[in-house]
């Protein structure tokens, strides 16, 4: 009777605690809201209040502040911070064993945040942009050229990193070739039978087409036509070989990259036959017209439209317990939150963890009929079978029964506010922007690939913590004490946390427009149409183009602030009310 009551109390405790856990996104929400409202200086101040330069989040400190300073036009300061970030990433290559032990006894948030591979690439991307904009502000010819050379240093670092990545993970072409092999096709069939419908090869980040495209632009700025051609061509080929599909970029960007390759061939000279061939193979009528426009222009406008933020990771909680009668370990997701949140959690659980393979369903059916099949839809059950003896030997069963233990893993809810129409108006003429990059997709792909490891690590961690604590307590008392066990489980539940840290000031997507122009003054309007009632966002700029100039306009666009977010900002800005002193109270 008491045992049943304790079991319900501990489950209630898990639910209450799980719903109260703050994610990294919650921690820096004020800074993100300030950024969205176009106040990166205030965002930096708010950010520095919560994230410090010397803690386990120090890499995030340098990366997030690097972007905020960039958005505030403090390019040198941004580069200083991002250089620190890059050095930290190098340091983090060596994994600390002591840190791994610490994580095993607590949770992954106590470890240093080491960054994701695509984030490392974007450190150099932002540094390159900073140098480019410093070069645009330079007054002297030599100073401008030196700053453009510094931007190219970042382009070379990007290239080095991406070459290393390709050597380690294989190229997109390798992945395509592998798909054609008979053995891989048979393996894929079995994967599907086992319920794994995710093609991991298609999600692995192997190279970055957009970074090469930016490198092409930087080389072109410095009039190094051969290097620019190589970079643009590399981007075009990578988009074609699988990058475009991996991040959801359309054919229009592939065409744009080929157009720029052809332009560089034209400028360098000696590529006439290749130009003739590529023009008909890679460009459509519109792009061929655009190529002609370049011949009648003496300047160019390049718009890099950075959209919104990358999505935030949330926390998905499970209760893990054992069923000794069935010799099974069971994971039940805690689908707490409002209808949308619980729906997202269930969708992630089903997509990543649920036993949905044909072989699983057949096994469940043979072990317990239809009832057992239905139960597996809302749980993940692991048949321990012969491993059950080991579970009993290590007393894991006593730690995991009676209410189980709490386990947390990160997940991504689907993006809800997206920009579905982006238009650039130049002197009254409309041009569409094309999607060149999706960091939101890169982040999601990385998390999908990590999901199983995250779960296994979390299971092992919580099992170890609970088994050690329960065993130690019982050995001190000399007997098993159910009440104490529940108390200890409640204690360990408070330390179970998912690592929800990611570089959140990065944009979700990058859209590009390149317009051949005639030198002189031009008025620009950038319009982004966001979904879900976030409305139209319009931004204006006037530019003065010199002959031969390539003007880059990097513009960040955010959906309008919601009423709640606006209220939160007002609250954050309101001066803190001073508590009246004792004397004040007496006088009143």
């Amino acid at each position, binding site marked *: 009777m008491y045992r049943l009551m304790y079991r319900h109390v501990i489950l209630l405790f898990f639910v209450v605690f799980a719903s109260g856990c703050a994610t990294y996104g919650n921690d820096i929400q004020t800074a993100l809201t300030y950024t969205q409202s176009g106040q990166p200086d205030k965002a930096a101040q708010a950010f520095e209040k919560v994230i410090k330069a010397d803690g386990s989040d120090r890499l995030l400190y340098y990366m997030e502040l690097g972007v905020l300073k960039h958005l505030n036009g403090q390019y040198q300061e941004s580069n200083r911070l991002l250089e620190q970030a890059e050095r930290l990433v*190098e340091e983090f*290559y*060596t*994994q*600390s*064993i*002591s840190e791994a*032990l*610490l994580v*095993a*006894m607590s949770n992954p948030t106590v470890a240093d945040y080491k960054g994701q591979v695509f984030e490392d690439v974007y450190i150099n991307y932002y540094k390159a942009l900073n140098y480019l904009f410093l070069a645009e502000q330079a007054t*002297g010819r*030599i100073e401008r*050229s*030196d700053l453009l*050379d*510094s931007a*190219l*240093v970042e382009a*070379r*670092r990007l*290239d*080095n990193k991406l*070459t*290393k990545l390709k*050597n*380690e993970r294989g190229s997109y072409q390798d992945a395509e070739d592998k798909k054609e092999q008979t053995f891989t096709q048979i393996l894929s069939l079995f994967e599907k039978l086992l319920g794994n419908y995710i093609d991991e090869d298609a999600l692995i980040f192997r190279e970055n087409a957009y970074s090469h495209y930016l490198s092409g632009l930087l080389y072109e700025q410095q009039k190094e036509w051969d290097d620019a051609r190589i970079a643009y061509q590399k981007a075009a080929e990578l988009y074609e070989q699988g990058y475009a599909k991996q991040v959801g970029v359309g054919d229009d960007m592939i065409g744009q990259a080929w157009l720029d390759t052809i332009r560089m061939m034209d400028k360098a000279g000696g590529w006439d036959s290749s130009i003739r061939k590529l023009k008909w193979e890679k460009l459509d009528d519109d792009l061929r017209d655009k190529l002609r426009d370049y011949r009648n222009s003496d300047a160019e406008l390049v718009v890099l439209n950075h959209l919104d933020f990358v999505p935030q990771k949330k926390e998905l909680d499970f209760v893990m317990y054992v069923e000794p009668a069935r010799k099974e370990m069971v994971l039940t997701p805690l689908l707490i939150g409002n209808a949308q949140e619980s729906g997202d959690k269930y969708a992630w659980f089903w997509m990543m963890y649920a036993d949905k393979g044909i072989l699983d369903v057949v096994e469940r059916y043979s072990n317990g009929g239809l009832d057992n099949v239905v139960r597996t839809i809302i749980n993940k059950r692991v048949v321990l079978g012969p491993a059950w003896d080991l579970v009993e*030997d*290590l*007393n894991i069963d006593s730690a995991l029964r009676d209410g189980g233990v709490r386990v947390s893993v990160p997940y991504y809810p689907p993006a809800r506010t997206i920009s579905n129409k982006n238009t650039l108006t130049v002197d009254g003429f409309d041009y569409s922007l094309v999607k060149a990059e999706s960091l939101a997709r890169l982040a999601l792909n990385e998390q999908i690939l990590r999901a199983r490891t995250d779960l296994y690590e979390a299971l092992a961690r919580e099992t170890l913590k609970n*088994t*050690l604590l329960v*065993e*130690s307590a*019982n*050995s001190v008392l000399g007997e098993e004490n159910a009440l104490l066990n529940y108390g200890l489980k409640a204690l360990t539940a408070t330390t179970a946390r998912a690592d929800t840290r990611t570089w959140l000031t990065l944009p979700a997507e990058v859209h590009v427009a390149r317009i051949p122009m005639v030198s002189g003054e031009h008025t620009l309007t950038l319009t982004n149409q966001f979904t879900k009632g976030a409305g139209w966002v319009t931004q204006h700029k006037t530019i003065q183009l010199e002959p031969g100039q390539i003007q880059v306009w990097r513009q960040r666009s955010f959906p309008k602030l919601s009423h709640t977010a606006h209220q939160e900002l007002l609250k954050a800005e309101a001066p803190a009310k001073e508590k009246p002193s004792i004397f004040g109270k007496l006088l009143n």
Partner: protein
Amino acid sequence: MTNALKKTALSLMTVAALTAVAGCQTTKVSRVDTNTEVALTDRWNATDSRLVSEEMISDMLSFPWAADYERQNPGKRPTVIIQRIRNKSHEHIAVETFSNDLKRAVIRSGRADFVAGGAERDDIRGERRDQEFNARTDTQVAMGEETGARFALSGSINSFVDSLDGDRVTSYQVDLKLIDMLTNREVWNGTKKIQKFQEKSSFGF
């Protein structure tokens, strides 16, 4: 508690204690000779800049151009101006420091003189113009008395990187050339390469 579990717990506690002790390091700073190389990473450093400049200038002066000039202009040393040395590497190299190392190596040899160029020359000219209005006439430096450079030194710093897992080979190549501005003849062309190998272990305490 089972023996296996006790052992695991004991091991974990021991490692945690060792880690705590290892973490009690304090910051220590010591002076080192500027000629001593302290290579913390495989990046281009002050020693690379000094060694490369000394070796390249030594090579440059061993070519016949300096002796030819002295023979044609008895009692005079050739004057050199540093034009642009471009950083085409993957590191943010302080090119000005490298240029200064080159100048020092040449001046130390006593075989050639340097004249100011670029922004430095503009500043000096500005100073002279200022003297025309503000300095006493007997202390003014006259305009139009500059020493023209006969030779122009220019070049680039390039790099190549090959890396896999924790290993990285970085090669730096410095290419310099000296041009006789009177004849446009390239009188010297030198290359210096340095290569560094960095290993990083995947695990550590």
